[in-house]
């Protein structure tokens, strides 16, 4: 049984019983055995074992940072969860993947950031559509939670804010007291 760990979901620290399947060296997508329970499988495993995996009530997939959101478009409704992997926190491709999953493909389920997920990126991640964060295990998740509220205003649109500041409010210069 997967060990329950904590994640941030919908701005709260909650227990989580999903496990993430990562292929080890020598594993192949079509032969790797997917454990029972709630598992987030690599998209390649989903593609290779689609027929069997479709039988399962709850299945999640994760996209690698070099994937395109489009690969998931035909099966979106079948996933309880889609995760996007950040192999390094400086790899920003996952932001565009998330944005496209949400905005272009209309994915409404849980969208989780996994991998090298750190406090100082969470604000940006939630803006492009992530609502769950598997914060890197060696970091304090309660501390990381604070990263979601670094800013209370934003200029530009993204998934979280459909209207840019200039259309949302009446703007006028003010002198600072």
């Amino acid at each position, binding site marked *: 049984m997967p060990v329950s760990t904590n994640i941030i979901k919908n701005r709260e620290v909650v227990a989580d019983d999903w496990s993430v399947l990562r292929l080890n060296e020598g594993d192949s997508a079509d032969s790797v055995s997917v454990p029972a329970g709630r598992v987030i499988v690599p998209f390649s495993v989903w593609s290779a074992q689609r027929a069997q995996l479709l039988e399962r009530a709850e299945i999640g997939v994760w996209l690698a940072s070099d994937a*395109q959101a489009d690969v998931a478009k035909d099966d979106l409704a079948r996933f309880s969860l889609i995760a996007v992997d950040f192999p390094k*926190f*400086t*790899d*920003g*491709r996952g*932001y*565009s*993947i998330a*944005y496209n999953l949400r*905005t*272009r493909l209309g994915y409404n389920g849980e969208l989780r950031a996994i991998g090298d997920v*750190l406090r*100082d*990126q969470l*604000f*940006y*991640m939630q*803006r*492009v559509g992530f609502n769950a964060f598997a914060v890197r295990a060696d970091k*304090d998740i309660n*501390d990381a939670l604070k990263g979601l509220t*670094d*800013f*209370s*205003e*934003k*200029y*530009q*649109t*993204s998934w979280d804010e*459909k*209207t*840019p*500041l*200039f*259309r949302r*409010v009446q*703007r*006028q*210069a*003010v002198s*600072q007291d």
Partner: protein
Amino acid sequence: MYRYDQYDHLIVKERVAQYRDQVRRRLADELTEEEFLPLRLQNGLYMQRHAYMLRIAVPYGMLSSPQVRMFAHIARKYDRGYGHLTTRQNIQFNWINLEQSPDILAELATVEMHAIQTSGNCIRNTTSDELAGVAADEIIDPRPYAEMIREWSTFHPEFAFLPRKFKIAISGAEQDRAATAVHDIGLHVVKNAEGEVGFRVLVGGGMGRTPIIGSVIREFLPWQHALTYLEAILRVYNQHGRRDNKYKARIKILVKALSAEEFARQVEAEWLDIKDGPATLTVDELQRIAQYFTPPPYETLPATDAGFEAQKTDNKGFANWLKRNVKAHKVSGYAAVILSVKKTGVPPGDITAAQLDFVADLADQYSFGEVRVTHEQNLVLADVKISELFTVWQAVKAQGLATPNIGLLTDIICCPGGDFCSLANAKSIPIAQAIAEKFDNLDFQHDIGDIELNISGCINACGHHHVGNIGILGVDKDGSEWYQVSIGGAQGNNTSIGKIIGPSFSAQQMPVVIERLLSVYVQQRTEEELFIDTVQRLGIAPFKEFVYASPIPTGYTHGEDACVY
């Protein structure tokens, strides 16, 4: 000039708090240096050779006098009494303590300034024309668009961790003064046949180790679509730009690999989804921002002034300064004054706290309280009355900011190089100084005429050596510093990349190399031909031949080829 509203103030204030906590966590070891690095870079804080360097954003080069005074204050309180103007129209301070950096941001916020995205793999400070709003050849003032891009790019959540840094430049005049062709994105304001305003969009220009001139991917983009189109470009780049090799990660490599046509096709496809969406700019928004860039209260003045004409005739020094450092203005009776931050003996672009205070006062008195930074590392007072030019000149002269060398040989673009920068392979400031000393004679410089000499201490090309008419690049050969010389580079409407003339030289040889290049020019030029024209007409061969014809002393020697350094 743009003034913050409550939202700008709030965002910058929250940034200061966020960054302060990041520094606290770094000092408490809650963040490793590796984790902290991109955070501090996105706040303009570099670790340099000796200390931290803080690069402060000067959006499209525009400053108010209180902001200039704030730089003087920062120079005194947190640095060693001076700052350095950069080719990004920014200012940087070289001797900063990490612990004090949040306080500097807090002080900057009081004058509507920050250091957001002045470094890091994100969208950098958008640069523009230092003569925006006043240039005689202006089609449309680019600053409102630059400001809209500033806001859009500030903390853009999707593009904070790009494959590499990303630079946008915008020009609204006949003459491109913003080096748009060597930016990741260059925007030219244009009007179509119906008189509507839009942009010609260039992508994939850049310098560094693979210098490339940008390709036009769209001849006319109606201005309302500027932000959605930029978003489409950035999204294609974010997903497809190379991340396996930092030297091949800039958008220029992607555009080259795909071809400009294919890149444009992908952008257009991406754009279809967001075109006409809520991020489309509105006339209301353009007007809101444009109101900050309305002309100052100019007086109605004649085109010239009797006193001024007399001063010009009587004083050769003043006349020289007018010829080089004063630019035509679109309003009668006014001129734009370039303050030369290129005095011989001073590192190009370095400016002291006292000079900064002086410039702020001068701007208040003579130029509506406004100052600009040029990408050639000089300052501009954009709106000086012609009748007051003589007074301004005398005041500026006393502060060492009136060297009449704008556009001349000693108006050298130069990065901080190995004296400061930890990336540099070689020093650049001493090379600039040695050349400036050798050719300090102004009559000689005026005879040579317009010439751009650019020096970079490494392949990253902060000194824009590729587009210098003469470009000097510091290289490392077996642990010692050498200099590679190229000629024929140019910025502006006819941007070109210089060609390397041959094997590199030692630091001591450089002034003689320049002397030999210039002597070929002087011998070969036709009347009215500039250095760049002669190079373009003859190619590099005669220059190369003469430079390498006889050995150049490598040390301090006497005689015909005596080095000055």
